[in-house]
């Protein structure tokens, strides 16, 4: 964990985070959700938004949305965490936070509200030069 904190703190934040694409919610309910998870940076999954802010600072961009099947490509991996029925019957609220890690790299983390605050759901590290 110390290694993760150190490496993240060394990143330079910029103000140019991608503005369009938000975050997610939910409890992982499928195998595919876990197989999609390419979290090579060890354990972000135990962190709340507040803890994340301690590591990365304030996000450059935040958004909140209700997840549905009509999600944009950027947020599409969030559908791995919910069944169609869940999305229809009880569409989850998602909070999306994006940090500019460098002029070339952004990190977006999606959180789901819980009784203990916003909990990590999923994340994406992406190049500023990509289109979805």
């Amino acid at each position: 964990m110390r290694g993760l904190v150190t490496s993240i703190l060394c990143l330079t934040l910029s103000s140019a985070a991608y503005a369009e694409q938000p975050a997610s919610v939910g409890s992982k309910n499928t195998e595919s959700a876990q197989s999609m998870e390419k979290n090579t940076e060890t354990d972000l999954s135990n962190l709340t938004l507040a803890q994340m802010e301690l590591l990365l600072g304030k996000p450059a961009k935040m958004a909140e949305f209700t997840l549905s099947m009509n999600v944009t490509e950027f947020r599409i991996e969030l559908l791995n965490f919910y069944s169609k029925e869940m999305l229809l019957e009880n569409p989850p609220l998602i909070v999306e936070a994006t940090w500019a890690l460098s002029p070339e790299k952004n990190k977006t983390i999606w959180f789901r509200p819980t009784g203990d605050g916003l909990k990590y759901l999923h994340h994406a590290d992406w190049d500023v030069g990509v289109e979805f």
Partner: protein
Amino acid sequence: MTKPLREDLGLADKLKVHILKKGETLDKIAKKYGIKSGRLLFDAKANAKLKKERKDPKNLLPGDKIVIPAPDLKSIKLQFKKDMPRMSIAVDGKKQLVFVQQKWEYIFNEASGVSKWQPKEKKNFHNKVDKAIWAKWSGRYQLAVGGTSDFAKALKGKIFKVSFDIKYVKSGGHWKVTVTKIPKGGFKTSKVNWGTQTIQLDTEDVKPLEREDKDGGKHKQTPAAHEFGHAVGNSKFGGAMHGDEYPEASTYKEEYSSMLNIGSQLKKRHADHLVSELNKMIPNTTFVVKSVN
């Protein structure tokens, strides 16, 4: 018996007739129609009747009908090709076809818990991508040609169709395409990086995905065809300098049916980069999108 070239091209239409006005010279008329000199125009077989009547071009009178001979297509270059970093374009005037090809160099990987790619699966995936892109993009654009070149004059009024093809290559690809095998029904973000010439797809990207717009309208889109739209120049980082249309900031955010939004319809603007590159290929020749379906 071999058909005359002009008929091959569908150019066997009526020859043009120019009615001489006061003050006009044969040289001026010849220049207007891309003929080297007034003398050549006068001596053309098509003007034999006029020549018989007037004997000398100096005797021409206002009102005389001058037939503009058909261009000698045998002497006109009708095929052009250029290879660019992200695609190659071939123009075939004889077939009235623009052929756009991208060579894709695949990197295949798997999400955890999914079986390894088999050679046959890789080939099948490529075939499905190629088919999806062909179905959504090819034969949709109708281009008209204009300009002062012999090519443009010979093919004026003709419609060019555009075909898009993906070629599977082992090396030297225009694009490096990473394809992740994911569980059926799973989701993975697909993306295109114009700058690094990289594409990320997954095995679900060849299946149509239905989305609903804010007004309840339903739209189907095959993600691979959408991502191809970026690779063919709809990128805010290059090419046409315009990319995704669903973001709030997009001028076209409410054109849900558009391929670069959440639908499958191609728009004229989606060929902006292609047309821009075409218009650098043949001197004094301009292509415009006449229609798209």
